[in-house]
């Protein structure tokens, strides 16, 4: 790895790390004031436990060897990762991917907000990482799904669709919050949500443009796409809101920005021109209706992880089948329908997402049932009513 690329990957890794606190604030502001510290802790816990699991065994199972379904044990404890060879590029990549591993389970925390026992979350995160994140990551990046030709630049399928559908499985086992949906749970701090959104957008430049794993034109295009898709999606969301509900809201802008970022994630290094505006706009439009599905279907996805991350990730991943334009990227991948390709790429995108959805949903559901039957996954009714901050962490956010 050349010096410029190494510098960019290292900076990108730090940018992705910053996304987890950003996500914590984004979720924490939307959460109840009596549960905000629990939400922050669920997120920060991910950047405590995941790096440990990642270097002990996670990276090796996610990237080691040439297996189709799972890695091997060649890189346990970072064994055989060169430091000076390749100018440190390999080591930087292990760190960079570790940041992705940390934020992926953190995404699920928004769905289980206000009612999950912290002890259950503490076990859920490392187990979910090894049983769900690691295999799907291997399938997409160096396994059977990637080999078949499906595309996922920075983790639309491997991260957002995966975590989004896992969130649905988790809340189906966990159950609804007391009083939902008859009692409202409006955000306790919109400024916190907006700070979190800003941090997420900032960090997402590392997430997407860093995924080129080089300082090159593809990284620059991914950077531009990250910029444009978020803006387009946020704009569409507030326009829809203004005419549907009467007002353009901060939460609408924030939700649109995140939906756009999620949707452009799988496509960031494969599309160009106006494609990011179209992908972001479509994602904003679909997601601002998708967040209402939970009321009809009756699942209590507290902070809309399914409506934003699952739906947004799926929309972006499938739109690759239309907008992928290899002419601008040295022909390194198949073309989408709008750029001379056939239905083949779209079919591969669909297959990759179905595979990830089936695995993630079923294993997450099983894991949650196992935790429910052993240590229990839900706090007591009293704790839920009085707030998780005091009961689970002996702390109060606001005095």
């Amino acid at each position, binding site marked *: 790895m050349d010096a410029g690329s190494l510098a960019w990957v290292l900076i990108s890794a730090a940018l992705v790390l910053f996304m987890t606190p950003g996500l914590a604030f984004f979720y924490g502001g939307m959460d109840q004031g009596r549960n905000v510290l629990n939400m922050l802790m669920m997120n920060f816990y991910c950047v405590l436990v995941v790096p440990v699991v990642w270097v002990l065994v996670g990276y090796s199972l996610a990237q080691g060897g040439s297996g189709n379904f799972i890695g091997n044990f060649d890189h346990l404890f970072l064994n055989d990762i060169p430091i000076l060879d390749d100018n440190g590029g390999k080591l930087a990549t292990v760190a960079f991917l570790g940041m992705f591993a940390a934020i992926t389970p953190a995404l699920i925390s928004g769905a289980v907000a206000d009612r999950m026992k912290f002890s259950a979350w503490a076990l859920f995160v490392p187990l979910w990482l090894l049983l769900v994140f690691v295999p799907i990551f291997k399938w997409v990046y160096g396994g059977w799904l990637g080999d078949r030709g499906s595309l996922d630049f920075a983790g639309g399928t491997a991260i957002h669709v995966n975590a989004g559908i896992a969130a649905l499985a988790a809340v189906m086992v966990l159950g609804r919050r007391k009083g939902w949906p008859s009692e*409202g749970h*409006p955000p306790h701090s919109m400024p916190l949500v907006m700070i979190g959104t800003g941090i997420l957008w900032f960090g997402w430049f590392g997430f997407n443009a860093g995924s080129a794993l080089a300082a090159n034109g593809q990284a620059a295009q991914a950077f531009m796409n990250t910029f444009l898709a978020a803006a387009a999606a946020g704009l569409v969301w507030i326009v829809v809101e203004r005419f549907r*509900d009467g*007002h353009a809201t901060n939460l609408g802008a924030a939700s649109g920005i995140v939906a756009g970022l999620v949707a452009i994630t799988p496509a960031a290094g494969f599309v160009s021109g106006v494609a990011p505006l179209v992908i972001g706009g479509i994602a904003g439009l679909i997601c*601002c209706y998708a967040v*209402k599905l939970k009321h009809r279907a009756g699942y209590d996805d507290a902070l809309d992880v399914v409506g934003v991350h699952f739906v947004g990730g799926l929309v972006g991943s499938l739109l690759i089948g239309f907008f992928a334009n290899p002419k601008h990227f040295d022909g390194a991948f198949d073309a989408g329908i709008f750029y001379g390709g056939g239905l083949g790429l779209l079919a591969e995108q669909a297959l990759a997402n179905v595979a990830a959805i089936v695995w993630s949903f079923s294993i997450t559901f099983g894991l949650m049932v196992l935790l429910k039957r052993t240590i229990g996954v839900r706090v007591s009714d009293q704790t839920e009513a009085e707030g998780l901050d005091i009961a689970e962490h002996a702390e109060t956010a606001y005095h």
Partner: protein
Amino acid sequence: MKLITAIIKPSKVEDVKAALTAAGVHGMTVSEVRGFGRQGGHTENYRGTEYRLEFVPKLMVEVVVDEEQAWTVIDAIVESARTGKIGDGKVWMTTVDELIRIRTGERGVEAM
């Protein structure tokens, strides 16, 4: 002695303070309170879901004054806190049996 308690719109607190000072009042206590009267609550909208918030934020102003001063102070509050729109609040007066300044132990009107 009388305790004058007023529930006012938060945006009017500076006007009320100026009017009270002009009326010769030397101190006041302001608390953030929430409640509803005829104004009712308001509606907020998050991700397309409407939330009805029944309690409206208000400020509660309390002053203890000499009996002769009481109606002047009430008039000052009513005039300064009024916008003419629903939700302007209420003022009421109650009798205070005793008042003691903690620092000196002075009692009654001396402690004001």
